[in-house]
């Protein structure tokens, strides 16, 4: 859902930061995201699930070193949504009417 380019799913600070971090990598492991965002497993899981349900994030499980690890990546839809959201934020900061998306 968007309002003047503002994506309500990315409005939550943690979800915005997750998307911004994933935009800079091809894939990031769950534990690394948790370390960078300084949130609990359950909080990160909820945010990733919300982003995944919206099609913004792809989640992949892989067995490595005898442990199951979850890898997250930003989808094309997620990249477009982040770009639109950031553009809208910049438009607001510039005290301009938010770009009609």
């Amino acid at each position, binding site marked *: 859902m968007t309002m003047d380019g*503002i994506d309500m799913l990315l*409005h939550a*600070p943690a979800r*915005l*930061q997750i998307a*911004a*971090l994933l*935009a*800079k*990598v*091809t*894939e*990031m*492991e769950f*534990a*690394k995201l948790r*370390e*960078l*965002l300084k949130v609990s497993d359950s909080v990160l899981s909820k945010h990733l699930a919300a982003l995944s349900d919206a099609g913004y994030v792809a989640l992949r499980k892989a067995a*490595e*070193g005898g442990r199951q690890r979850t890898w997250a990546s930003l989808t094309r839809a997620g990249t477009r949504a*982040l770009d639109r959201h*950031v553009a*809208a*934020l*910049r438009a*607001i*900061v510039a*005290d301009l009417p938010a770009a009609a998306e």
Partner: protein
Amino acid sequence: MDPIEAQAALDSISAAQREFAARGPKYPLWRHVAFAAVMGAIVLSQGFGPPLQILLFVFAMAAVAWLVAEDRRRYGVFVSGYRKGRTLGVTLLMVVLLLAAMGAEIHARVNGLSLAVKWGIAGGAFVVALAASLLWTRIYDRELQNGAA
């Protein structure tokens, strides 16, 4: 949303990306050298006929797979060299130069040039790949430090 709230959101993006720059991958020199050696081996493989060509190429591909797996295990992230952004120009320039080096190796093989020439071309490819790897990482780190979403 008011401008102060929007600025805070933009600042939170920059903060997250700077945190990643500080606590993300710190590729040691051996990692850059290993990458360059693999690229050099791929180029050198074109200077020989089978079976040496195939052996070198398979070894190089296995080494690439190992480097990627090691990056994932060590840092918890994987960043493709072909990602969009300011680093893409470095990647594309390196690919063009390495393809030219492969062409030179094939020319050396077809025309029966000496082993020294083939090693010289591969050495040049090694230097190009090492410089590209170091420059790519520097540009990527700067991009993260700048916190541009």
